[in-house]
């Protein structure tokens, strides 16, 4: 082999990589030179490395929706832009507060409740009467918390228009929708205990759906308010009410679903119901004031437990 041929062969490899011709001999697109080839290879390597990093980071964020807070408690506040959600295409008014299973509760004093409102049916109406009686006697109970409570109130009928026959609570002597009263009060905390008058009629799904609608209305009326859902409380079973449509099985099913709903929406969930159950999961006899009636209303002893629980579960 001649030296000129040898010399030609040493650069052949690189030339073959970068040089191309059309079969007809055209030289369009021909790239020549070792340095160019190296540049292309380096570019390809960098691209692969970069793409791998982006893909890996995306996987990390999808699998880890929560990030630790300063106190080590996980919250759902810090969802990154790379997290995919198929249900958040519309703007919602839900806040992003920690739930019962994640939040660290703290003991609070009366001031904590000053701008709170308690929404509920006759069970909460009883609480409002108990608190009113204590306040009238000079005791400070639940700060200046206000009550929007009414017998027979439910998530469902709270959504209806106000009428002579509706059971909306009154606020300062005027019957009005919950959201209208909340719009006047502008509370920073909204405690809700409903469901007893819902689940036997509308089932678990229907109750959750109505709850979602009502809570959205409340948040529109008082943006930024903390929503605190209290579990629907149990029923004392007696001969007179054993065949009623409302039973503890339905209540328990509702509570499970309501807890999941609260966690999904970022609301706080307080399991007050567990404070009043007997060994059979019903309302303990010492806490029931209407054992021969509906079996759902509380004694003063139950109200004391309830109030104590509220003081110990501030968020």
């Amino acid at each position, binding site marked *: 082999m001649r030296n000129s041929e040898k010399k030609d062969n040493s650069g052949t490899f690189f030339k073959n990589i970068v040089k191309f011709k059309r079969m007809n001999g055209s030289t369009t697109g021909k790239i020549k030179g070792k340095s160019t080839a190296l540049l292309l290879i380096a570019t390809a390597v960098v691209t692969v490395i970069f793409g791998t990093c982006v893909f890996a980071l995306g996987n990390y964020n999808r699998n880890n929706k929560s990030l630790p807070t300063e106190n080590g408690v996980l919250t759902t506040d810090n969802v990154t832009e790379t997290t995919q959600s198929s249900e958040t295409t519309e703007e919602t008014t839900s806040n992003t507060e920690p739930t019962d299973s994640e939040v660290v509760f703290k003991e609070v004093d009366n001031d904590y409740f000053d701008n709170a409102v308690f929404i509920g049916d006759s069970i909460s109406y009883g609480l409002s009467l108990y608190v009113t009686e204590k306040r009238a006697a000079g005791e400070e109970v639940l700060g200046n918390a206000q009550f929007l409570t009414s*017998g027979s109130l439910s998530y469902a009928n709270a959504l209806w228009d106000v009428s002579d026959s509706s059971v909306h609570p009154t606020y300062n002597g005027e019957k009005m929708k919950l959201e209208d009263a909340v719009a006047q009060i502008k509370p920073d905390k909204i405690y809700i205990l409903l469901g007893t008058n819902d689940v036997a009629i509308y089932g678990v799904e229907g109750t959750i759906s109505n709850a979602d609608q009502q809570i959205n209305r409340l948040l529109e009326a008082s943006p930024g308010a903390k929503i605190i859902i209290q579990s629907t409380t149990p029923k004392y079973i007696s001969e007179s009410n054993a065949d009623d449509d409302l039973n503890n099985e339905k209540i328990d099913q509702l509570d499970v679903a309501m807890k999941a709903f609260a966690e999904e929406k970022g609301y706080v969930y307080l399991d007050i119901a567990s404070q009043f159950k007997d060994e059979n999961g019903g309302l303990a006899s010492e806490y029931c004031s209407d054992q021969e009636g509906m079996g759902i209303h509380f004694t003063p002893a139950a109200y004391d437990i309830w109030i104590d629980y509220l003081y110990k579960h501030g968020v």
Partner: protein
Amino acid sequence: MKKFLCAVVSMVFIFVFSGCSNNYSGKKYDIQKTGTEIVAQIESASHMTQVNDDILMSFYGIDKADVNDYFALISTDSTKQDEVIIAEAKDSQSFEKIKEKIQTRYDSKYAQTKDYLPEEAKLIEECKIETDGNYVWMFISADAEKMKEILLSTAE
């Protein structure tokens, strides 16, 4: 015959329209004495909570500035609807406001209880809001008649 019929019709109209007016007897009632006697004489009332100015606003929406005097009791048992309120309005305008607020309270109590406490709803139905001049009262109680007697007995 025609004259007789005219007389009958006139009597009917007089009877009907007289019910629409607030015939003031001119009497003054001792509201505080009434309240004290009600609590002393009626067992159920002795277990009820006396309403203060804050409760008057939160439960009734009645502004203390609109009343000359009042006495009220509420039941703190959520399964009992017993309630007492006697108020003297400052003037006719306040009277209309107070009467409307008490009526709202009455209507709400009935609407809330008619489904889940039918016996209590019946008790509410049997009681009524009454007025005399600028005085308005409501006794929701099985002892409503006795309470009214006590009030009327204080009249001057």
